[in-house]
């Protein structure tokens, strides 16, 4: 699972840098985040994801600083949960047909995997910086076209 998560994050970083993915703020989209699988005791759900501790603690989802991108039939979320002293980032994926979403990387679950957490933070920094540049590019394009 960790190997696949790292590969996913690496691919997201590469595609984001190549502008192959378009990220938007969760606040600005109409996409609904599907819930996580209900019971971890159900064998058929064992490998579909784990309940993130962020949902159980008092950390709140910060929608204005969370991002998503739609790719083919799926949606990839970069969710920021803000607590009193710290913030957590979660990488979650869902498809149009799936009933649930699945966590691929999270600070709570992967707390000991240094490389995974570092790459997740790297991806988040890249996406949040990218967004501000894309806004400026869009503004300039609209300005040029308006003349």
């Amino acid at each position, binding site marked *: 699972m960790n190997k696949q998560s790292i590969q996913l994050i690496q691919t997201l970083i590469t595609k984001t840098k190549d502008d192959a993915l378009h990220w938007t703020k969760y606040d600005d989209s109409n996409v609904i985040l599907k819930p996580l699988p209900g019971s971890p005791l159900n064998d058929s759900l064992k490998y579909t994801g784990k309940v993130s501790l962020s949902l159980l603690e008092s950390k709140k989802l910060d929608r204005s600083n969370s991002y998503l991108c739609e790719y083919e039939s799926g949606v990839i979320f970069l969710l920021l949960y803000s607590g009193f002293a710290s913030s957590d980032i979660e990488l979650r994926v869902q498809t149009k047909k799936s009933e649930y979403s699945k966590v691929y990387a999270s600070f709570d679950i992967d707390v000991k995997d240094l490389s995974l957490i570092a790459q997740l933070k790297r991806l988040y*920094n*890249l996406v949040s910086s990218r967004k501000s540049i894309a806004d400026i590019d869009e503004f300039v394009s609209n300005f040029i076209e308006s003349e």
Partner: protein
Amino acid sequence: MLSTIADWAGILSFIMTIILFILSHSLFKNMSEQRKDYNEKRIEIQTDLISLRDNIWCDDLDSIEIRSKLRQSLYSYRNRYWFIAFPFRLYHIQRSLTYIKGPIQNKHKESLCNHIDYLIGNMDKREV
């Protein structure tokens, strides 16, 4: 006369001993708390530095947000653990901070990454 001076010197040195004992006890306690806090936060700080280094080095990001996050991380590290930090760590932190006061010049990128690499590598070790 001489014996009076000797008596007073003895009393003063006894009082100084008590004060130094109390001070060293509180310093030791402060050191233990910093060490404990450091071991708990070590991974978080280390991953922050790794991610920001990769953003600057591999992703070519040099925005005010990235520099601000890096400064925040370094200042936080320096202020929280100054007492247990070996002087070399403080030196690398200071040198890193000088490079990110403004936009990072290309000729300084490698030096900046060298300093951050040192801090990252240093954090592999738990404080005992």
